């Protein structure tokens, strides 16, 4: 097992507001971590900070991704080195087809690693297989990115992008919100297909139900921008039963 993500004493500000306050977190290859916590606890801020959103400023502390200090890398470099963020609210881009977008993304990554463009046929074979796995109809792929997609389709499309880009670290920000039970199973199967000894996942969720399909190795409870408790799947079940208050306001 090698260390993939190492966050030390991280403090993050958005504007003049301090959102993440002294966070420490280590994730190694092969591991799946879940972060749970009440609204406004800083979960999504952490996800966007790792991905490099320009509005989220690291005041102090470090985020090491493998051998790289993420603060030194642009958003696209982080992606090309294997960091993937599945959005809570996937963005619609009409006029840019899903297929063209995915192809551009894959070839950008290949170019970064001094590889030539993926052949059209190899790309299409891969896309067909993975879109079938995510239960996304072929006709959706020629539409604009997320254009006219339902909430569930958007989330499945995020996982499709993850599978196509083959990242090392996948951060899924409330991928389960707005999903019906069937869509959740599809999303979970995609995430489970991604899991192997060389990859790692950080799953941000409010509810235990997704974790019934993607069993995490660790469950962390986030409050006021820091981890206040770490456990296993049983912790998620306790939260489902008792809520957060027994931890945040004991």
């Amino acid at each position, binding site marked *: 097992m090698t260390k993939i993500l190492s966050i030390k004493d991280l403090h993050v500000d958005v504007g003049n507001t301090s959102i993440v306050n002294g966070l420490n977190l280590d994730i190694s290859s092969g591991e799946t971590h879940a972060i749970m916590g009440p609204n406004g606890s800083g979960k999504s801020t952490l996800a966007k900070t790792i*991905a*490099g*959103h*320009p509005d989220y400023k690291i005041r102090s502390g470090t985020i090491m991704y493998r051998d790289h200090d993420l603060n030194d890398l*642009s*958003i*696209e470099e*982080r*992606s*090309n080195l294997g960091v*993937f*963020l599945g*959005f809570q609210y*996937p*963005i619609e*881009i*009409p*006029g*840019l087809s899903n297929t063209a*977008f995915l192809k*551009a*993304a894959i070839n*950008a*990554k290949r170019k*970064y690693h001094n590889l030539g463009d993926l052949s059209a046929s190899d790309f299409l074979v891969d896309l067909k297989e993975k879109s079938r796995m995510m239960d996304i109809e072929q006709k959706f792929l020629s539409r*604009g990115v997320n254009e006219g997609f339902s909430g569930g389709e958007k989330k499945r499309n995020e996982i499709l*992008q993850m599978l196509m*880009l083959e990242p090392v670290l996948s951060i899924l920000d409330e991928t389960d919100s707005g999903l019906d039970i069937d869509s959740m199973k599809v999303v979970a199967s995609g995430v489970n297909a991604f899991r192997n000894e060389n990859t790692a996942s950080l799953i941000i969720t409010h509810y235990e139900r997704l974790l019934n399909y993607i069993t995490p190795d660790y469950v962390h409870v986030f409050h006021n921008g820091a981890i206040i408790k770490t456990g296993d799947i049983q912790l998620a079940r306790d939260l489902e039963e008792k809520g957060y208050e027994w931890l945040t306001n004991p």
Partner: protein
Amino acid sequence: MANQSLNQSDHMDKLQSFIENDSRNLPDWVNQGRESAFKNYKDICNKQLKTATWKNTKLNSMLDNFFEKEFTDQETSLNQFELDSTLEDSLRIFFHSGAFFTEEEMPSYIRFLKGNYSEENQAIFRLENSSERQSIPYLLNNIISRDALLIETAENQHVEKLIHIVHLPHKNANIAPRLNIVLAKNSSIKIIDEQLSSGDSIINNYIDIKCEEHSSLDYYKVSHAQNDSHQINSLNLDQEANTNVNVFSLDLGADSASSLNHLKLNGENSNVSCSTLFMPSIDRSSHHNIIIDHLSDKSSSSVNYRGIINDHGVGSFFGKIKVTKERRNTSAFMQNKNLLLSDDSKISTIPILEIYNDDTECSHSATSGSLDKEKLFYLKTRGINEYDAKNFLIKSFMDELVSQIKSRRLREYVNGLILGYRKD
């Protein structure tokens, strides 16, 4: 901003001298038309320069430079120009040095002077003296133009072949192309009117379109970037009952580029869609005025203008839809969206609805802003660099208009032009 330096009397003297000293032996009907236009021009010029239509344009500086450009005829050979072959299988008509010409046999529904100023050819010009035609561009076009192109379909004629009018590049020229399109009952045609890049020139295009009942027109106006040039495109459209007209314009900007569209829905069930994409950059400007008159019941209009303004570019949109008290069951939609790509780019937008009854469905909107930061972030999180991400978002912004072009080949042609322009 407008240059208020025009010396009116000097300008008028030069214009009069130009008319009087034309060395060609022109027939009376041409001279009378010019004199009549000049008389009206003197009456309206000063007044119109102060109106909102021209307030933000550089029309004054264009008129200042008016006589510094060449009016003389030049010999033209197509070999002089590098022409794109994408639309080669269309019926091509060229314009250069004040005259139209072709290299192939023209069908009977296409006419131009070919140097023949006979009385019979007077009809090609379709000169009119009505008050609504009393605009600076129209009258100047009457004074300067030496030729006109008339495309006039017969009843029940459906022209399948694309008509491609190519305005060849000019240098230091003052030209006034004139295009008349008349669609007879139950006829249809598709026309692309393309202005290639000129330098140091004044181009005053006037397009007059008349659609009789049950006719259908797709008209595409493509203006490449004009260098150190002034360009005016005026379009006057009259639609009778049960007609459908789609107008799409692409304007890549000029020192000053202006479009003036006046669309009149005269007959029941007349429908018009007018879309324009304008992209001024460097220090170019692109100004657009459109007026739609709903003069009949059950008429519908859709206006969609999008501006992409970069560097020190300046754009403006002024749109007005008028529905009078008597008109019933009309629908009108007007939208102007603008993308500002630099801190120094500027846009002004004024959409106006003048609706005088309740039996109409109208909406209008205008937005201006920079590229969406969250969309940029999303694309970058997928490994796409800043330059490509911005280009994707610009394409996304344009695509809603370009995708309306029905012909796939034309759509690809327009996309290619835009792509090439952005790479430049």
